């Protein structure tokens, strides 16, 4: 296990070194005139050069009595080519039980490999394929915050803006949806320590979002205050359902519904969401999720904000209509 952990860290280290060595770039999650912001609980449908630092979540667990949990995450996304990117992330958790017992430590290291299948500007459509790998044994196993086994989750992501609707739809054209669906395979089927099966899980989520920047620049400028014109109100949903190898475990679907808002700036965005458990197994009461997300492609367009290989190294084409 120690060897596996060292190997995982070495791979992550190598990727990061590669990531900062420089190349060419364009980025952000644009499909035509539509900008998909980085959503907080789910992923946006694009490869990008971005950094979430930090994502902070406060919630109460579904235990009786409920424990209080803080999660602080970092995610660093880097394009290797124009269409292929890698994200490395980790989460530090602190769980305080009412009786005074506390668990704290890092979860397993996450790495996501993503390939941009499609960006269709006129239809504001973006499609993405990904493989999420949680590297077993790279977190605080002894604290119960990480597992000794890894998981692999092939995932499909999509984003669709409704700006291609007829003009008669007016302000409704500022709506967009994003979503993802993945199937999580553990690398171990049975946990000897707990004496339980490790299920295969369907992991899925979606967001519906309303873009005030899109309303202002594409549909109608209502001369609203500048702050309002940078807002994207949204509702996210993230769910997981055990679907196989779940003998003796609860088959219940868990997850949260997160209404919130993202303020989109030039170099960064700030998001805040309420976290509403869908059932008692998912948590107790309403939690909070907040994130500062940095657009590295805009902050460092000539260094770490561009893909490592190929990409837009060719001179831009003169635009023609």
């Amino acid at each position: 296990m120690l060897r596996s952990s060292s190997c995982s860290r070495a791979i992550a280290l190598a990727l990061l070194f590669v990531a900062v060595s420089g190349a060419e770039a364009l980025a952000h999650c644009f499909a035509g005139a539509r900008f998909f912001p980085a959503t907080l609980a789910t992923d946006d449908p694009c490869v990008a050069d971005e950094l979430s630092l930090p994502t902070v979540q406060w919630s109460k667990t579904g235990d009786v009595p409920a424990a209080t949990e803080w999660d602080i995450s970092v995610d660093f996304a880097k394009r290797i080519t124009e269409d292929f990117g890698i994200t490395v992330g980790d989460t530090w958790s602190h769980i305080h039980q009412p009786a005074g017992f506390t668990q704290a430590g890092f979860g397993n290291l996450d790495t996501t490999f993503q390939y941009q299948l499609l960006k269709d500007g006129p239809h504001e459509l973006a499609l993405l394929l990904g493989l999420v790998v949680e590297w077993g044994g790279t977190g605080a196993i002894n604290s119960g915050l990480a597992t000794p086994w890894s998981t692999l989750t092939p995932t499909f992501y999509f984003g669709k803006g409704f700006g291609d609707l007829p003009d008669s739809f007016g302000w409704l054209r500022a709506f967009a949806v994003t979503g993802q669906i993945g199937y999580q395979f553990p690398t171990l089927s049975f946990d000897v320590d707990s004496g339980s099966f490790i299920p295969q899980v369907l992991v899925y989520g979606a967001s519906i979002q309303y873009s005030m920047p899109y309303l202002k620049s594409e549909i109608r400028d209502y001369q609203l205050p500048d702050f309002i014109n940078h807002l994207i109100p949204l509702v996210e949903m993230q769910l997981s359902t055990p679907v196989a190898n779940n003998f003796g475990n609860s088959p219940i679907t868990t997850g949260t519904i997160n209404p919130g808002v993202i303020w989109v700036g030039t170099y960064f965005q700030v998001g805040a969401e309420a976290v509403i458990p869908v059932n008692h197994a998912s948590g107790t009461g309403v939690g909070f999720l907040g994130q500062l997300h940095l657009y590295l492609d805009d902050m460092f367009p000539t260094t770490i904000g561009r893909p490592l290989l190929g990409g837009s190294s060719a001179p831009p084409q003169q635009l023609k209509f």
Partner: protein
Amino acid sequence: MRLRALILSLLAMAFSGIAAHAHAMLDRASPAVGSAVADAPREVSLTFTQNLESAFSSVQVTDANGARVDQGKPQISGNTMRVGLKSLSQGTYRVRWQALSIDTHKTEGSFTFTVGGR
């Protein structure tokens, strides 16, 4: 733990020199996006959030039949792009633009305005 320290070090290095460039987003337009104006405008003016690369930025204005009603090559200065218009009659017109900010980030968009709609 050493990896996390390395990540933090890299981030600290990276943030030591932020360049002042980004995607050029449409900040305001004249005629305004989605507006109805009583008198036919003589030009369309677009102001962006970033300075533009003039050789690779463009704007086109068409009428309801898709016919060009702009006077061709736009004038680009800093973050503003202007294009003259032919004499417009009453109706709805679409403005399509593409912009390349000076650090090669490309953006695009379109909107309509109406003449004689007040």
